[in-house]
């Protein structure tokens, strides 16, 4: 049983116009086995939270803390966080030139486990996970994300989730750009890992449709760098009906 704890997190970025505060005091606790959904309008800071957890150098933590089982996550480098069990399925996975999927997956697995995976079982695991996510076998020989469609990139993120088995997964809009079939396939991929009972999930989304497949225990509404409201799954249904309007300043209402 692990706990990821975010306390009063303030995060800013350097822009050409100077320092810009994006997260304005976020607190959130996730435990193994729990699924937390974060929902919020565009630009509210959801990806900023995700990237800050993963340690992207662009985001500056001004105050607050992130700890995992008491360990200070903010002091860890990006790769140390991953090895500690944090996984970020990115909203926009980058294309990495020159590195095949096969090579990448094996190198990452070796780094995460501290030893090379047994070749035979590993190859079998990769093949199986790929076929369950309906990823063509020839993707293994292609460079990481290079020329993959938006939906293919998302499947490959979930492929990694399944193979790396993190303690905590942050999924940043994994649902966007997926058609219904792909959404199901990807959700099932997450749920397979969830069912092991050894992972906590922070699911970031703009829409409620993914919540039909991945059932959250908690829903947090994210507005302007803060959690504006929290509740159970019923909160998602309400957002589905009412949208985010009631959380937005009157002037910004559409």
């Amino acid at each position, binding site marked *: 049983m692990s706990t990821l704890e975010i306390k009063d997190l303030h995060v800013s970025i350097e822009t050409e116009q100077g320092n810009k505060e994006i997260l304005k005091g976020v607190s959130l606790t996730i435990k193994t086995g729990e699924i937390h959904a974060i929902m919020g309008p565009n630009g509210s800071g959801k990806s900023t939270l995700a990237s800050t957890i993963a340690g992207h150098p662009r985001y500056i933590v001004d105050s607050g803390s992130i700890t995992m089982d008491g360990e200070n996550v903010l002091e860890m480098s990006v790769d140390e966080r991953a090895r500690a069990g944090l996984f970020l399925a990115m909203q926009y996975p980058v294309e990495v030139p*020159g590195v095949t999927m096969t090579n990448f997956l094996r190198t990452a697995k070796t780094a995460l486990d501290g030893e090379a995976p047994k070749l035979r079982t590993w190859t079998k695991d990769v093949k199986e996970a790929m076929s369950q996510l309906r990823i063509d076998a020839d993707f293994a020989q292609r460079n990481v994300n290079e020329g993959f469609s938006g939906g293919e990139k998302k499947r490959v993120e979930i492929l990694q989730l399944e193979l790396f088995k993190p303690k905590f997964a942050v999924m940043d809009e994994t649902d966007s750009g997926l058609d219904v079939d792909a959404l199901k396939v990807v959700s099932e991929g997450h749920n397979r890992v969830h069912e092991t009972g050894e992972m906590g999930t922070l699911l970031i989304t703009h829409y409620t449709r993914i919540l039909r497949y991945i059932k959250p225990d908690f829903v947090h509404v994210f507005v302007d760098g803060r959690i504006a409201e929290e509740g159970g799954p019923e909160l998602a249904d309400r957002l589905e009906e009412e949208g985010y309007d009631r959380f937005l300043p009157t002037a910004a209402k559409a």
Partner: protein
Amino acid sequence: MTEITEKARIGAPAIDGFTEEGENLSPANPDNSPLAGASAKSHSHGGGVGVPDSSRAGRLTSYKVEDFPVLTGREEDWRFTPLKRLRGLHTQALTGAAPSVAVTGPEGAERPAGITVETVGRDDSRIGSAGIPEDRVSAAAWEAFSEATVVTIPAESSIETAVGISVTGSSKDPSAQHIVIVAEKFSKAVVVLDHKGSATVSQNVEIDVQDGADLTVVSVQEWDDDAVHASSQQAKVGRDAKFKHVVVSLGGDLVRVTPSARLKQTGSEVEMFGLYFADAGQHLEQRLFVDHAVPNCKSRVLYKGALQGENAHTVWVGDVLIRKEAEGTDSYEANRNLILSDGARADSVPNLEIETGLIEGAGHASTTGRFDDEHLFYLMARGIDEKTARRLVVRGFLNEIIQQIKVPALEERLTDAVERELAAGNF
């Protein structure tokens, strides 16, 4: 990956710009042609000037240096080369001591049985059998060399181990060198030209690939940091012959390799590969030419380069000419560069000239990508430490070429050399 890509795939014959007779698209690289397009300019990454090329078919060739005008640096084929750093190769008589030549087996092992190695004078009949200078520096070497090394793979012989030609420099005076490689009819061999030490040398390598022969020539430039090397490597490819040429440029201050393959008999096949890795201040240039002069030949070109450090500069120019007679040609050329740090510049210019519409296919591609913080973040977010992540990318990128060499000992050495480059650049 910040990527600038251009691809063109030409199938016969209904293409814009083609006439029944076939039209020469390239001479002026018209901006509206499907071969030039908007990206004709963007092929020079970091500010090359888009000077229109004149047809490669019309380029002056001569054994006499005085036939070539004195270089100004504005010539199409010298515009990327820093002439000042040629250390007199283009202005002085090349009278210095040429690098030594030793013919061995792979990696210095015993010379394989069955081949012939001769040192001959200028009047030997094989001199001039496969090449003629196409620029002033090459002509200067042709005029200046006093003796040449001729390596012959006898007809119908198959040489199982690689033949190594070690070229070792020990003088900085401008010098000239001449090497002839003859693969007689139906012979099969791999020849590795291995350049080391310090030198200022203009070199002509003639490669005569006779009918039905299967020859691989690998030219490795692992010079000391101060070396200056201009190398014209011209191959004449016979009927139904196979020729594979690999350029590996790693060490030297200025290395300019100009390989060419002339397909003058039908049924031949040419592959040209290149791998280069430029560090801070290095200038590594490769200009290749594939001349399809007869029907039904095939050519494939792939060069890949990595660059890191301030003023690391690489140049790749790929001239492919499909002449009017060369119906049924199948040709593709590509250049891929990976920039690993700021301050490096990769110029990449594919030139495809097609004079007949009756071809199997012809195309080119050029990409220059940059390894940046987002790539690093992605790999590190999967637990991979920074150093491993950087190396993973470069190794993977260059391996595609190393695997083409198919001389295990050499592959290993080049893999190590790439690792050293990475380590030296603190990458």
